[in-house]
């Protein structure tokens, strides 16, 4: 089991892995324009990591997905989200500072760099969700494996 699944599954995984990642990042990036957002896109990216884990086993992804890096990135994502909330505290917590100002991220609705802090929050949450779910899956997988060998 620790060696992963059959060669068919592994090959297909290699093929679709990049596409899932790309799609997930697309969903995060266009969260304020099209259906989706940080949570949904983050979950898509995390599902790519989970697929990798299932196909190659816990041992097979060593060196590819570093658990400690994932955890640190998750904390960074959470902190970034909170910091974006603090950004508006001159007016009120979570005040959308950039929206509609015409400058940075202040383009009118419908453009990629619009909606003020929303795209930034999408990225922060997306980073948090993808790394969070991935580290849950990895930790539970590694823990289960240890139990089997004991």
């Amino acid at each position, binding site marked *: 089991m620790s060696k992963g699944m059959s060669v068919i599954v592994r090959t297909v995984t290699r093929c679709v892995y990049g596409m899932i990642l790309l799609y997930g990042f697309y969903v995060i990036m266009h969260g304020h324009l099209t259906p989706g957002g940080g949570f949904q896109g983050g979950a898509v990216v995390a599902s790519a990591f989970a697929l990798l884990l299932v196909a190659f086993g816990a041992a097979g992804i060593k060196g590819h997905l570093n658990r400690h890096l994932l955890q640190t990135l998750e*904390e960074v994502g959470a*902190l970034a989200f*909170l910091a974006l909330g603090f950004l508006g505290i001159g007016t*009120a*917590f979570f*005040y959308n500072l950039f929206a509609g100002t015409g400058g940075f991220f202040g383009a009118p609705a419908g453009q990629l760099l619009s909606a003020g802090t929303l795209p930034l929050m999408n990225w922060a949450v997306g980073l948090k969700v993808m790394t969070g779910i991935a580290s849950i899956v990895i930790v539970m997988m590694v823990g289960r494996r240890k139990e089997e060998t004991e």
Partner: protein
Amino acid sequence: MNALLVHAPVLLVAVPLLGAFAVPILGKLGRGVRDAFIGLIIAVTAALAGWLAADFFAGGAVPFVYQLGGQSTGIPLLSGGIPIRILLEIDGLSAFMALITALITLTGAFFSFSYWKNRSGGTLYFSLFLLLTAGIFGMQLTGDLFNFFVFLEITSIAACGLIGFRVWLRRSQEAGFKVMTLYTLSGLFVLLAIGLLYSEYGGLNMGYLAGVLGTGVLDKVALGLLLTGLAMKAGAVPLHMWAPDAYGEAPAPMSAVLVANSQASLYAVFRIVFTLFGATVSAASLGWILIVLALLTIFVGVTMALIQSDIKRLIAYGAVSQIGYMLLGVGVGLAVSGHAALPDYGLVAIQGGLFHMLNDAACVGLLFFASGAVIRAAGTRNLNQMGGLAHHMKWTTVFFVIGAFALAGVPPFNGFASKFLIYEASFQLSPFLSIIAILSSILLLAVFVKVFQAAFLGPRPAQPVAEAPVGMLIPMAVLAAVVIAFGLFPGFFVDHIVTPAAKALWDGPAAYITTVVGLGG
């Protein structure tokens, strides 16, 4: 108002969250940096809560709102009479509850530094602790129902992570699963009720909903679901089965914080029966439901405490019974608030119930801290295997006795002060209520005399045990000082902090509603 103070309601949630998110990163820099940072965060939070409450009560306890993300923090933006953004709403009761949480989390954090010194996973432990703190503050300060549900779930998950934290104890895992199941169920009941109310009235703000709620079947079902869910989370009989497991299996400082967590759910029960449904349901019948629940809780809690031989489980059942006293006080107040004459003892009963929340947090916290020190020293939780600890642990013994007497309602400690108010008021409604309450207190005293005799008296133990370290004694001393101060000068505290909180309930929902939707109503 001071610029910082304007933002204090949201900072009370955001600062512990900042701490929780940053602790795992700072933990890599070493234990000293981490502990200093946590101490700073928790001290800042407690100071903010104290400052907010002091300013609020000194300023006449006028409710105010904090609008998140809007152009103006103080004046909510309405659309068709419905606030469109999330509002935090501070009234007397919220400020009072924030004080309790600040007291318990501050002492709990400093007790934990010493308690968790030689254990693994300290960084994760403190991260969960700060999340729990943020969740409890959020539950108490928010004025939005769905936001309340989100904070309820934060406390559920953080609390269960902490209950199961000592993974090497098989019982802690069992407790963790059980508590998580019931917490989730209670959260889902609350969410379903929120969904019903939203689908009917199109809004989520409590002030708005309180103004428009009707008396239809849908409202009754929503009320039933909310009360069931929150009573379950607060640990009221007959839905109390998780409470002794949670308090008993969590690490000792966390048991104290879990009691504050249960009190936050109890706060929500009061908020719902008085503010949200205050204008539309029959106060008398709802009040009597609370009174019956309260008597059951007191009775079951005390009788189950009587038969325990595990010291923490025993204190846990004692804590369950105290939830009953709070419910009794406020239930009596609710039952008479429907009377046309509005007799004065209703307000006294609510004062007693709320003052008991503060007192219970202090003395149950003290007892859990002391039990943590005792278990650590004796190496067992079984009362039958302890004995003679008073020879070596003089300070812990003193603190334990103070906590036990306060919990059992012996003068001059604080438990007596608040229980006396409850007895006095409930006697005027029905003598039967106060008789049960007094008898249960006496039984509880007997239980603690038994514990004291079993654990602290007796011959010197075979190998000498060490007194608890100073890091544990100081938080205990702080709580003991609070217990004694509240017991000696109850009048001062009742007048200045409890009465505004009680009035927020007793005077009905009008002020709360007006603050949100303006004078036009």
